[in-house]
């Protein structure tokens, strides 16, 4: 009987400590929210400058309307944005193939050394924002579409190579061993054993990344790589707010087209 009592005591003790932990967690969460509100809304915001609700509405009303005059000048940048995304994804795929080869545990040539190196490359590629990549490449190769393509390629490497590497790791081992037993080289194993297995998923991933890259390439122009971002930047600096709305409309329609295309293509492949 006493043993039974003890377990109940233990249980309630455990439960109360769990509740205490939960309470501490939520109190901390709310405290951080209040701290953020204090920092952002009370300390850092100049309410006088923002003005009343009416002035905000007035500021917003500038954006209403479309500027038909700049529409013909936006077709070429929109096309450029689209091509930048395509080329960036292609180059990213080319760059991510060796990284994926090094970063898959079962095919990596030098064990944990090359595996760790490839994982590091993937993390760096993913953790640097595309704007920062674009800044680096604008500094390196100058203005134009080329730095945008390079930035998109380097940003895509992390995601594509991670998915490819995970697929290689999860590939069925039986065909690989059969090819090895028949005397196939490492290249044969890769070409006949692994690639046919991972191809559908990889192509789906590439289409998905292409879809994201359209979104990214639309802002590359903000830091000096071409495309719709540059048009947006120009309209913004000329304070032509209807023009800004027009450019945003172009960007959104381009992205929606890309999304529909990618949805359709992925459905067809998988």
């Amino acid at each position, binding site marked *: 009987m006493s043993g039974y009592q003890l377990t109940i005591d233990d249980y309630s003790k455990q439960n109360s400590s769990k509740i205490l932990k939960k309470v501490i967690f939520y109190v901390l969460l709310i405290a*951080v*929210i209040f*701290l*953020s*509100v204090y*920092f*952002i*809304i009370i300390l*850092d*915001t*100049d309410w006088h*400058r*923002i003005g009343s609700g009416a002035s*905000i509405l007035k*500021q*917003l009303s500038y*954006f209403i309307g479309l500027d038909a005059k700049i529409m013909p000048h936006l077709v070429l940048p929109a096309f450029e944005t689209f091509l930048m995304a395509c080329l960036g994804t292609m180059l990213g795929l080319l760059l991510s193939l060796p990284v994926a080869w090094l970063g898959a545990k079962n095919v990596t040539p030098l064990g944990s050394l090359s595996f760790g190196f490839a994982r590091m490359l993937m*993390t*760096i590629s*993913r*953790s*640097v*924002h595309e*704007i*920062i990549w674009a*800044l*680096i490449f604008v*500094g390196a190769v100058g203005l134009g579409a080329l730095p945008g393509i390079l930035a998109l390629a380097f940003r895509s490497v992390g995601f594509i190579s991670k998915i490819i590497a995970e697929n290689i790791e999860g590939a069925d081992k039986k065909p690989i061993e059969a090819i090895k037993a028949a005397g196939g080289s490492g290249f044969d194993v890769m070409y006949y054993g692994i690639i046919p297995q991972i191809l559908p998923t990889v192509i789906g991933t590439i289409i998905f990344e292409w879809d994201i890259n359209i*979104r*990214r390439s*639309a*802002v590359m122009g*903000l*830091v000096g790589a071409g495309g719709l971002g540059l048009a*947006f930047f120009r309209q*913004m600096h000329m304070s032509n707010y209807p023009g*800004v709305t027009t450019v*945003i409309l172009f*960007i*959104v329609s381009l*992205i*929606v087209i890309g999304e529909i295309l990618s949805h359709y293509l992925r459905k067809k492949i998988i």
Partner: protein
Amino acid sequence: MNNNEIYKRNNAKNFIYVSLFFFVIYLCFLYLGIDFERFFSALGRFGSLIANRYYPVEIPYVLEPGYLGLVIGVIIASILAYFAASNITPSKRIGYWIGKFFIIFSRSIHETIWTILFVTIVGFGMLAGTMALTMYCIGFFGKLFSEELENVDMKLVETIRSNGANEMQVFAFGVWPQVKTAFTGILIYTWDVCFRASTIIGFFGAGGMGWYLKRNVLQLEYARTSAIIVSIIVLVIFSEALSAYMRDKIYKETQ
């Protein structure tokens, strides 16, 4: 000689050695003429020196727009996702399309463009950044969470509904327990992405680290620029490791 005596004698010996050691150090200080007060307060001043002079980035100004934007964005996005999930939406005709439209709209526009728009409306500062990140979180979190809501097991939901529960009860007892884990996972992932975005929004006028980056890019201070980029990478890798650890822990707890 018993153990106690040996112990005492060793103790005395050790005491002499230690006091000799400190005495020598004291002599060194005396000989070199070092002011004790200055010496012991150096560590504190060193910290503030680094914080003020060598690394002039206020960390809260990097973290907080991301955090607040995440909290507000997730609250709004959860409501929108509830409307935008085709199987559990309360009104299929209007609510579904409104929810879907807002999620797609806030997702279509890149976070940097949101930042620029909000900066023109409410002015420079972290408020604009918070609003931009809120929109970004609505798009990101709303899409993932509404997809998760569309994949719930409808049998449980139907059972609860056929027992006469209203919409709130259906959500609380039929849907929420199924998506709880996914909600936390997506939340952590959104935090990760939002943090990455919050390091860059300052570039377009929303305070924080991006502002230092922009200033140094414009001044062509490439060494400082690369220092800031490296600190951004370190911060992001740290937050990524943290979120991977938390997701792992949640995954293990639910197993």
